[in-house]
């Protein structure tokens, strides 16, 4: 039973305080939904959770150990799907998906299974430059499915996705949670996840349990 938590997180970006005294706590099998207006610090908090940035104050820890103490270990636990798709136009869909799967060498699905779940297996051989925004998003989400990581950090995952794919994504996330995983998702849409706590970010950031 792992616990991922943050206390009193302060973060300053471009001389503006984005997060101030924010805290969260996340256990295996649970989801944390980040909400807030544009610019409230949802993406920033996800990047802090991923270890891409260090907080200016406070700490983020996994089972009580600061994630900055062993970044390599933390990298193995997480998968981060940000705004940028990281999809190479020159590579085919399956080449894009299997590169990240093989690099992570995790215990998740294979790349072709992940394409199937997200409904783009018929596009596998197509060069990614011909994909629509939603299809690129799905290729990007394949990384979460194939990684086998315990903690999924998803930044507005349902952007540009159609209703069917959003539902498939919700089911996949439910499956991940049921198998003891955890996830933090920033979203404006209601994902309808069970076992989800909501952390609303804004001028007065609260503490979510």
């Amino acid at each position, binding site marked *: 039973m792992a616990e991922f938590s943050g206390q009193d997180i302060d973060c300053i970006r471009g001389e503006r305080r984005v997060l101030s005294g924010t805290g969260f706590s996340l256990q295996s099998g649970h989801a944390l939904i980040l909400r807030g207006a544009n610019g409230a610090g949802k993406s920033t908090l996800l990047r802090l959770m991923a270890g*891409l940035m260090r907080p200016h104050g406070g700490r983020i820890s996994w089972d009580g150990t600061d994630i900055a103490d062993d970044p*390599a270990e933390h990298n193995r636990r997480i998968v981060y799907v*940000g705004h940028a798709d*990281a999809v*190479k136009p020159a*590579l085919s869909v399956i080449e894009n998906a299997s*590169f990240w799967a*093989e*690099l992570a*060498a995790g215990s998740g699905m294979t790349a072709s299974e992940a394409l199937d779940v997200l409904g783009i297996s018929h596009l596998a051989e197509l060069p990614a430059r011909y994909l629509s925004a939603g299809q690129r998003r799905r290729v990007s989400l394949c990384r979460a499915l194939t990684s086998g990581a315990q903690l999924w950090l998803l930044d507005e995952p349902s952007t540009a996705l159609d209703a069917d794919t959003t539902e498939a994504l919700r089911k996949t996330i439910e499956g991940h949670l049921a198998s003891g995983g955890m996830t933090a998702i920033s979203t404006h849409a209601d994902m309808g996840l069970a076992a989800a706590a909501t952390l609303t970010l804004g001028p007065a950031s609260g503490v979510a349990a």
Partner: protein
Amino acid sequence: MSAVSVLFRRELRLALRQSADSVMVIAFFVIAVVLFPFGVGPEPNMLARIGPGVIWVCALLAAMLSMERMFLGDYEDGSLELLVLSPVALELVVCIKVAVHWLTTGVPLICAAPLLFVMMNVPEEIWPVLLWSLLLGTPVLSLIGSVGAALILGARRGGVLLSLLVLPLVIPVLIFAAGAGDAVLFGDGAKANLMLLGGILLGSLALTPWATAQAIREAVA
């Protein structure tokens, strides 16, 4: 399969699918050298005298053309921050990218060089030495260039800034590499020049991946 070979094959595949970049570097190299006989006149002794230096300066400028792209594509589409989070150490990621950069620009430059030796009337006895100097010197360009390419991430007009950062740093390479040919002609032997180039290569191999990796970490934070 190890993560290193997965990454290496992906980089190589991307470079080969976008091989127009490499072709343009070589075309620039050849055209830039060809301009010199038009500029300074086709007098054979004059060309032979300036040949090694001209070829090296043009190789340097040609390599600069491709350096900007070393991390920029991955930075813009978000791949770079994922590589920072990947299980492969970032220093190793940098080494792989530099190796692929050298294979797709440095090696073709070396292959094109003999053609330019003929064009610049470079004496045949210094061909091997000049090829050795290119073989030892071009990886240094990729290595030092990687530091510059990582530092300019997120900057406007990055290509110009990159030249300003990198060109002064590669002056020693130019001095010892272009001087290697002269050393043979003056009867001193080029061993000292080539060993110094080898030393610079080993030194930059040991130091630059760390500097580049740190610059990338700062860029994606």
